[in-house]
């Protein structure tokens, strides 16, 4: 029996490795999932589809399923994502709110005017404080928030058409959006 021990140990390890290949160690679950979205009130960047109010607060979206997309004009992968969000916003009725994160050079307004805006509102988090409240690790990140204002899902990194189809659409359907 003793002589088979190394082999058995190795077989157990291989089982874990095989499983590990299908896991992503970089994907860290957000502790905010299932918790109410932190409240804030921020001024809104004037955009093409101007928001009715000068300030935005998550409370304004009560009763709706909406997505908080954390982005920044200086973020390269956000531009990549921008096209996907535009396509989604044009073909489906999805409510994107784009948190403009640490836009020190004040470029958001011009950028959205030039390239179009998928957002219903663009709250302006210049200091980055709201991003910290939400546990943002980097841009872009997207939170799905339900009718009761509870965070139901978080996606780290740009949204590709595949990610939208496989991750967001089922979640939105489940939430009845």
């Amino acid at each position: 029996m003793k002589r088979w021990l190394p082999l058995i140990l190795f077989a157990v390890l291989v089982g874990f490795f095989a499983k590990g290949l299908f896991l992503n160690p970089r994907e860290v679950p957000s502790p905010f999932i299932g918790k109410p979205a932190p409240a804030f009130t921020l001024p809104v960047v004037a955009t093409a589809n101007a928001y009715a109010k000068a300030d935005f607060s998550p409370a304004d979206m009560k009763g709706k399923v909406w997505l908080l997309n954390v982005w920044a004009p200086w973020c390269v992968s956000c531009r990549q994502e921008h096209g996907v969000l535009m396509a989604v916003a044009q073909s489906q009725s999805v409510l994107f709110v784009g948190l403009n994160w640490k836009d020190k050079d004040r470029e958001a307004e011009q950028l959205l005017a030039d390239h179009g805006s998928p957002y219903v509102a663009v709250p302006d988090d210049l200091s980055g404080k709201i991003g910290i409240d939400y546990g943002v690790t980097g841009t872009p990140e997207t939170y799905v928030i339900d009718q009761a204002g509870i965070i139901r899902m978080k996606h780290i990194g740009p949204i590709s058409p595949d990610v939208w189809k496989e991750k967001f659409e089922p979640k939105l359907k489940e939430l009845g959006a």
Partner: protein
Amino acid sequence: MIPELGHFALIIALLLALTQAILPLIGAQRGNLTLMAVARPATQGQFVFVALAFACLVYSFLVNDFSVENVARNSFSQLPEVYRVTASWGSHEGSLLLWVLMLAFWSTAVSVFSRHLPDDMVARVIGVMGLISVGFLTFMLTTSNPFLRLLPAAADGRDMNPLLQDWGMIIHPPMLYMGYVGFAVAFAFAIAALISGRLDAAWARWSRPWTTVAWAFLTLGVGLGSWWAYRELGWGGWWFWDPTENASFMPWLAGTALIHSLAVTEKRGAFKAWTVLLALSAFSLSLLGTFLVRSGVLSSVHAFATDPARGAFILVFMVVVIGGSLILYAWRAPKMVTGGAFTGFSREAMLLANNVILLAAMGSVLLGTLYPLLMDALGMGKISVGPPYFNAVFVPLMAPALFLMGVGPLLRWKGDSLPDIFSRLKWALAVAAATGLLLPLTLKGFNPWASLGFFVATWITLTAFIGFRDRMKNGTRLFKLPRAFWGMQLAHLGLAWGIAGIAVVANYQEERDVRMNVGDHTTLAGYTFTFRGAVEHPGPNYRAARGTLEVSQDGKQLFVLHPEKRIYNASGMPMTEAAIHPNIFRDVYVALGEPLDEEAKTWAVRLFYKPFINWLWIGALMMVIGGFLAASDRRYRIAVKATVPAGAVTQGA
């Protein structure tokens, strides 16, 4: 054209590796000398073609051929020439080719320096190495071809990772791979012995010099990696217990155990099964490291870009190689008769204790490294294991091994008398204990960890000197002592002095993070630092802000340091280039943080005073030299001469 030539050379190398693997193994099984004789030419041919492929890759990098995807992703037109050469092994594909080149090199070395071994043994060893080569060449050609074209060609490259643009990184991977792959030789010898069923002292003697050389290279590679992290990452640390570092440290621990266990098997015929298992483990852990770093199952600060297809391939390969060898081991284990009885207080017993502790330490590193993966796979959440775990487990485990390291070499084989040894070593023990207790008081107060470090360092040093004195009692002159003895003592002393360095730097280093405007002073560890501002300083492929700090002591200016903050042109990646003023007793280490105002006059500056840190690298270097010295011992060469006639007869037959 040249990249295609390289690609083609790889395919031929794969065919030759297949020949090298299959024919000699069949030949050895059937006793067919003609088939066995294929081993050497096939190996040498494989080496030539892999080297040709490697040369093609280096050439593509040198001439900036951005129509090759690998070059476009990892090089840049402004990259200095020396880094263009090293960029060829900076990527996953390129480093894999380097790995295969090293393997071919070691196989060729075996084919050349094995004239004294029985033909079937050589055929099996080379055949097993051929099998490993087949695996890696197939891996490269199917999932990681370094010669893939990019059409249309890129206008310019994306540049080599700036972290790797350092001369420590130029030699670190080749040395590390020489070590990793060198364990393949010990592995192949063990497999050959298992297949033939001849696990005797001769097998251990043949394996020993190869294992020691591989170990010395691995030590050099790990040491260089640590030195690079210290200089290049700008955090002043030299070991982070990162999965990538652990991947190289685990084979090192197993290899260290193997070296010691081989000594017992050769000299006393004991521990046979154990030694074989260690030989299998050392290389298995090298493969495991490759898997962990390249498959993406663990996240690490400096892992290669990962791809699940590659991970799956290496996993299957690992299952074949490691699983197969362990099955062979389990099947043959009953045949391994252990000889040579010994008491609980003998050199064998000490070496056994050393082995158990080293393996336990290796197991604790393995557990810590894999723990996040195990928890995640069991659905028990995402966690990460950091330095506190490793320090808490590793240090107490190693301390007894280091104490035994002083006693072990002085004991006789079979059995020795405890009172005798105690009376011989009581003064050394007293001096070491006194040093451990008192030395910290002369520094900055008592510290139990520093005491422990000083105690073992002094203890090993004194017992090594006693060892030399014992050996010279019968009139042998110091430099006439065998190289194996010198090598062992040098390696032990290197470890002891490295530990002394660690004990000082870990417990008595000082650091400060300060904001400094032009003309500001700050003091650290008796040195006064004056910031003279930072100026633009363009480099070949980066722009830098180059700071100037004057360092003085007691009003006398000692030296000027120029830390840099670089922005690399192609990637836009910022890099901290620390400035270090070294000497044997301390490093003064300065790194530039971020500019804190618009005109870049005020900077965040990080200052370190690192006492005795260089003892660490000097210690590692002594271990490397000790390893090479031991491997070049006359004993192994005499054995060669003595067996040449026998070998000649077999070859003539």
